[in-house]
């Protein structure tokens, strides 16, 4: 896409979980996407340890900002705004990013935009496929979230259609990988094993798909327990666990439900676009099945490249740029991190705004 020189130049900071992300965009053009991850430090604990993540954010922040500016080839004084994830996320981790963003904006004399992490996951697709269609249906799936969201304006109107009632999809991947002894994070490794397995080998349950169940909510806790029990039964019987088939069948159960509900929501709402974001959007089977079902339903699928699907600063910058472009009020210097910022608030305007 040609770079529009008049479009707002925004730097975005993301620290809601274990990635320290700093991205720079001009309008809908990606200029830099610098990420420092502490995932290796969490691996031996089998999950993200909040204090470890917060320490790593503080260490990584200044070098990551410097790297992003260098990568983008822009000077900080030319920025039109600074955006930051205000929530939802891990409170202590968010606070590091918010402190950095506020201070940077203040010192540079630029407006500050505290934005919603989930809306950012949707908005990032503008960097890949151009302006978001309005409305857009979004399926966000990661270790922290599993939501179906409908947005008619990403800066002001994001409506939750459904969400997980227990575990996030990515969390289920992590737990099954742990039971299978495949390490953390579970998503990529399950995907790899599943490619050599049979997705129909074991009939694992599809949560919340009964006629009386909520149409757009998800549940992965029952599936997780069923898979763990199945594996334990094999082990108890002294039989070898068919890791590839378990991975493929488990993965199929997850992506079957996700895509089925997403396509149904699109049809019910008369929306002809579906975007999929979040770390689990990197899953190859999810992409393939979504492609197949969307094509059959006449829905256009938009999935950003994997690096833009996982947590990063570019997505925050993308939403910040949209806030600037649409003249949304900036946040003020009292902006605080809100670990449970509702999805219905795409940004946190200041008191005066």
């Amino acid at each position, binding site marked *: 896409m040609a770079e529009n020189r008049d479009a707002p130049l925004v730097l975005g900071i993301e620290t809601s979980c274990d990635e320290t992300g700093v991205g720079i965009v001009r309008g809908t053009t990606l200029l830099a996407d610098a990420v420092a991850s502490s995932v290796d430090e969490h691996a031996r604990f089998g999950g993200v340890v909040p204090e470890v993540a*917060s320490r790593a954010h*503080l260490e990584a922040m*200044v070098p990551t900002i410097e790297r992003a500016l260098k990568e983008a080839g822009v000077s*900080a004084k030319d920025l039109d705004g600074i955006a930051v994830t205000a929530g939802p996320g*891990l409170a202590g981790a968010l606070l590091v990013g918010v402190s950095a963003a506020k201070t940077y904006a*203040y*010192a540079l004399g630029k407006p500050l935009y505290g934005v919603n992490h*989930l809306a950012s996951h949707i908005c990032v697709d503008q960097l890949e496929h151009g302006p978001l269609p309005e409305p857009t249906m979004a399926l966000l799936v990661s270790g922290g979230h599993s939501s179906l969201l409908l947005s008619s304006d990403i800066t002001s109107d994001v409506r939750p259609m459904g969400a997980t009632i227990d575990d996030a999809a990515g969390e289920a991947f992590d737990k099954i990988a742990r039971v299978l002894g495949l390490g953390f994070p579970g998503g990529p490794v399950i995907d790899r094993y599943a490619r050599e397995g049979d997705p129909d080998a074991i009939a694992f349950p599809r949560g919340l798909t009964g006629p009386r169940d909520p149409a757009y909510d998800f549940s992965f806790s029952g599936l997780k327990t069923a898979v763990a029990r199945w594996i334990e039964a094999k082990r108890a019987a002294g039989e070898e666990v068919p890791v590839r088939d378990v991975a493929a069948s488990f993965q199929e159960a997850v992506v079957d439900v996700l895509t089925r509900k997403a396509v149904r929501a699109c049809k019910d709402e008369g929306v002809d676009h579906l975007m999929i974001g979040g770390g689990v959007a990197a899953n190859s089977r999810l992409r393939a099945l979504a492609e197949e079902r969307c094509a059959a339903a006449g829905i256009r699928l938009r999935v950003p490249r994997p690096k833009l699907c996982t947590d990063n600063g570019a997505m925050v910058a993308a939403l910040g740029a949209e806030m600037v472009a649409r003249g949304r009020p900036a946040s003020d*210097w009292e*902006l605080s991190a809100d670990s449970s910022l509702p999805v219905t608030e795409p940004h946190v305007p200041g008191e005066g705004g």
Partner: protein
Amino acid sequence: MLLLALDTATPAVTVALHDGGEVVASASQVDARRHGELLLPAVDRVLADAGLKLDAVTDLAVGIGPGPYTGLRVGLMTAQTLGLALGVPVHGVCTLDALAYAADLPGPFVVATDARRKEVYWARYADARTRLTDPAVDRPGDIADQVAGLPAVGAGALLYPETFPDVHEPEHVSAAALACLAAERLARGEELPAPRPLYLRRPDAQVPKNYKVVTPK
């Protein structure tokens, strides 16, 4: 020189400006839960009080703790980011040293701040400028022998009168004292520590029982 000093390692959110000769403006608020919200407005207020612009600042000084981590990181992240944006050096100062400097007791004494979990961050001093021990975190009962008979300074001492019966002012650190101490050390040509936190404890890093979910349920 125009030194901007700040500290968030204790319940106080404290900011001061020092012009190389004296403190020209300062502000302190005690609110352990709102460091993130209060700090930057306090910086703005202090600059306005002094009638100075941020770009006049030539040096930054920041308390590196020890102190509760979440608040401590707000000050360090703010100071580091100011240093980046302004292109000026960021100097670290041990928060206990700033308390000792402010207390200005004549003889040997001890400084103790609240480390929560029934512990204190503490160090022993020969005088206001001379620390004798590395900052440490301990249960007051476990260090009773090492601090016996010494006057004590800080909110940590106030919490445990059995261990610290003789407590002196101040209760909380002030950036004004931190600025004076940093200015004194810089004037002497001393190398100040890097602006990185003194954590003293390892992170609580057992496998979380309930996997930390980013989105509230």
